[in-house]
Structure formats: C-alpha cells, structure tokens
C-alpha cells in the first residue's frame, strides 16, 4: 500500500496546508428541535498522526461528535475546522467523506447485495479510476486486512471479524488521511476484537493516519496515545490536551 502515501501527502499539503487535522471550538449539536442536546460545547484539537480514543458512558455524545468530524451531519453551533478550513463550509462534502476520511461502524454496515471485493469498491466510484484498477486496488486492500481468501464472499457468508475487516478495507478505499471508528469492536467477541483493534492500530501506524476511535471499553482506550473522556455532551478530561 506504499503507493497510497505520496498521493495522499500531496493532497494534504496542497489542499489543507499544515494546520491541525481537526480544530473544534464550542461545538453544539441538538436533536428533536433542541429537546436533546447531544453536544453542549466541545473544544478539541487533533493533530496529524494522532491516535485519539473517545470514551464515556452511553448517550454522552461520542457518536454525535464522530458524525460531526465525518461530516455526516452538521453542527448547530461552534466552529469545526478540518486542516484550517471550515468543514460545514466545504463546497463538496461528498468529496471530503469519500477521500479525506475513512469511517468504520460498530455494525460493519456492509451492503448485503455486494461481495467483499465489491463492497470495498463502492467508495471508489467517486474517483475517476477505471473499473479494472478499482478492482485491483480493492483486492490489494483485502489482502492487507488478511482476507484474500474471502474476496468473492457475500457479507452473510462472513464471520463478524471478517465483515469488520472488509469494512476496514472499504474505509481505506480512497486512501484517507483520517480514520474514524465508532465502537469498531463492539459487535465482536474478545478474540476478534483484539485482532481488529490490532489491525486498525497497525494501519494507523503504517500510514501515519490520524485515528479517532470511539469506545466505552477502557482497555481499548488504554492503547491510544491520548484519551478524551466525555460526559453529557461535554469533554470531561483530555489526557493530552493541546488546545
């Protein structure tokens, strides 16, 4: 996967300079017309290559924060910058989701009507690479997550651990510089959870990808270089606060 790097670094430098990956101030997010305040003013700065674990009790706003970082939804208040540019203000959010970030979900969220290798190719439609190149790239990504023997299997024929590996390969499809993971091992037994976590951390190190991982499991959080604890839509503690 060495070929992803130069393309990636070039894009980072040209598009977004050398600012922090994420710079968040006073971020608020409400649901149900303000009846639910999921984020009540979050301040946060994440630098390139960091591995940040976000922990906290269920319902404290971890997933909501990750959705804001991934531009899956827009905040109600505050600023949210990605490499120095306002993320909600980006003209092409789809391109940001497709190329800048890779996202991994607790429930894997593979598409059931596509095989492993096809699922990995889905995000690549947003790049202009020809079909054969997309397929080769998907196969090499599946090899990188140790699934070369499951390339043409449909998700229902794969174990939980295997499905999450396909999802990880999919998140890397367009060579992102940031990996966002929401409880990626939450649906796995402890043995598979270990394998998946090791894989994610290995990819983060090998490619110097920024990794933001949401978990309520403190043993997982312990492996991060930095742990942010949330409570009631706010940050309670940050063991490496840079902001």
């Amino acid at each position, binding site marked *: 996967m060495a070929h992803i790097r130069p393309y990636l670094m070039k894009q980072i430098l040209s598009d977004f300079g050398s600012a922090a990956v994420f710079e968040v101030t006073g971020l608020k997010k409400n649901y149900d017309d303000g009846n639910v305040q999921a984020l009540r003013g979050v301040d946060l700065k994440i630098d390139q290559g960091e591995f940040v674990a976000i922990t906290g009790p269920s319902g404290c706003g971890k*997933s909501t924060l990750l*959705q804001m970082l*991934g*531009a*899956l*939804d827009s905040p109600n208040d505050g600023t949210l910058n990605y490499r120095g540019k306002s993320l909600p203000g980006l003209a092409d959010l*789809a*391109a*940001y*989701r*497709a*190329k800048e970030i890779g*996202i991994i*979900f607790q*429930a894997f*969220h593979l*598409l*059931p*009507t*596509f095989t492993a*290798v*096809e699922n990995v*190719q*889905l*995000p690549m*439609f*947003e790049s202009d690479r020809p*079909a054969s190149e*997309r*397929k080769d790239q998907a196969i090499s990504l599946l090899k990188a997550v140790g699934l070369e023997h499951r390339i043409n299997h449909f998700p229902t024929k794969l174990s939980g651990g295997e499905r999450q590996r396909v999802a990880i390969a*999919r*998140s890397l*499809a*367009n060579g992102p510089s940031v990996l966002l993971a*929401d409880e990626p091992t939450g649906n796995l037994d402890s043995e598979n959870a270990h394998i998946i976590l090791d894989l994610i951390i290995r990819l983060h190190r090998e490619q110097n990808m920024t990794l933001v991982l949401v978990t309520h499991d403190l043993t997982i959080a312990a492996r991060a270089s930095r742990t942010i604890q949330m409570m009631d839509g706010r940050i309670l503690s940050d063991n490496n606060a840079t902001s």
Partner: protein
Amino acid sequence: MTFFTVIVRGLMRRPVRTGLTLVGISIGIAAVVALVGISRGFEQSWSKGMKARGTDIVVSNMGNALAPKPFNSSLRDSIVSLPKIAATCGLFVDLTSIESSSMTIVSAREWGGFAWQSLNLVSGRLPKDAMEPVVVLGQNAAEVLKKKLGDPIQIEAKELTVVGIVDGGALVENGSVILSLPLYQKISSNEGKINIIDIRATPGLNEEDIKKLCAEINVLIPEARAMPAGDNVGNSQAYKFISAMSWGTSLLAVIVGVLGVMNTMLMTVFERKQEICILLAIGWRRARIIRMVLLESALLGLLGGIGGVMIGSIGVKVLERMPAIHGLLEPDLSPRLMAISVAISVIVGVISGLYPAWRSSRLKPSLAMQG
C-alpha cells in the same frame, strides 16, 4: 465492478418483486401494442382495400356508425362530368351479422362498375347479371363463414347462393361478401341508395391534384365528403372513436404501469434507506444516488417494455387467428410501433423513479449510524 452492476444488484435483491413489477409493466405495454396495433391495422387495411379496388377518392358520409350513411345514388350524376374523373362506382357497404359470424363486411357494387375488376376468381364464377340471386365471397369470408361453392347464404331475409370465391388483393376485400348493388338494394330495402362512391381519377394526378379534386367534389355533393382513399377511414368518426379508445385504454395501462413501478421503487428505496445513508456516508454524491434509483427504474421500464412488446405481439397473433375475427384483423405491428412502445416504457420507468429518487437523495448520511 461497474455502475451497471450496482443497478442490476438493486433489482436482483428482490427478484420476485422485480419480476411482478416487470409483469405489470409488460401487461400495460402489451395493451399499448395490441390496441394501437389493431386500430392502426384496421385503418391501414381499409385503405389497402380501397387501393385494391383501384380507388383514388372515396365519397362517403362517415357518421358515428361503423358503416357510412346512405345517400341517393343520383348524387353521383352531379360529379361524373368533372374533367379529372376517369370513372366512378357506386357501392353500398355494410357491416352486419351473417349467420354465425357477428361482423361481416357486405360489399354491394354497382353492376359493371370498376370495383369488380380487381377481383381475381379463385374458383367458381362471378354473377351472370345484376339481379341473379348469388354472391361471391372473399377467401377469408368463405373460411370464416364456412361456405363453399353452391352453399346457400342468408343475407337480410333472402337466401342467396355462393357462386364464386375471389382474391381481392387486400384483407378487407378478402373478408367481404360481395354482391351486385341492385340486388342488395332490393333485399335490404335500400332502393336508390348507396353509401360510398369510389372514384378513379385520370392517370397522372399527384396528391395535390387529388386534394383539389376532392374539394371540387365537396362543393357539388354537400351530403357527403370526398377524401383521398388513404385518409378516408382515418377521418371517420367511428375510427377516431376506436383510435381514441385504444390510446385512452393504453394511457390507463401506462398509468397503472407508472404506479406499479413507482410503488416498487418507493419500497426499494424505503427498505434500502440505511444502505443509501451508508453510501452517502462513504462519500457517494446525492447525484449518484439519484442516478442509481433512476437507472434502476429505467431498466425496469426497458425490460418491461421488451416483455410487453413480446406479449402484445404474441397476443395479437393469437387474436388474429381466433375464428370470430379471423380475416377482419390485420394488425400493424411495425418496428416503429414496437420501438415507440419500448420508449414509452423506459420513459414510464424514469418518471416513476423521479419521486423515489428525490426522496432517497434527501436522506441524511448520519442515519447510517442508527440500527
């Protein structure tokens, strides 16, 4: 994997539902093909019949009935002297039930008129004189009525004899019971009446001249209308009614098709809500989601259209062979009609997909996280 694979997978995820939807559109399009094909075939076979009789202009009063209204045969005398008319032939053409057949064309022709000349005897003979109580049958009419030479045939209250079988060179002619005009006028109590004047123009006239001649005739005979042979049927009220009915029924069938496809596409979009959100979350543009839904429904339309053209064509062929209408029907199943039908079906597909596509493109990518 190409984008087309994505489209096909979308349709294949519920093969039974997709299949039923296809059957639905196919039946709608089959109705279009059959009804329009039959009504256009009807129009064309009438004008072919006129041409086979050697007719350039038809004078008749196509009212609201299937057969034209009778008028006095003396009206003909007022036009025979027009310079560009080579010959005229008075006819009384009726659509009636004869014995077991519910709809038979009875074509009574002026004795000695040119309309007799185009008939080629297959067997037997033509009538000997104007009042001989006999008929000749077109080949198809003989088959449908199950008559052979020498058989009696009941026309109005009178029993006549079949003396000849003819090939008239066109479906309408071959489906007709042909007899002498004075004989028919007598047995049907229509003495002195005709309802059609066939006119043969002097050779060498072009379409424009024929139209001018029609206009001249219309001044002289206000009771009826003169029209170039090809236009005659298309302008009749009855044909217009049949044509409007067939397009109207087709439109209904198409609307049912639209609702069917739209329902299917709404269901598929609804049940794939989360998948669509996942696609948005991994970077698909809304335009691509719209394109996916529209292409899926367009493909449904295309396949349904092809199926419909096949079902419609086979259905019409079966209908054509049914004894009750055999020999009356020469459907126009032209490649053009088939192409139009498939195109209609694809358009139906696209239109049906618009609302579901719009709905799906408004989903929020964050919904992917839920469930």
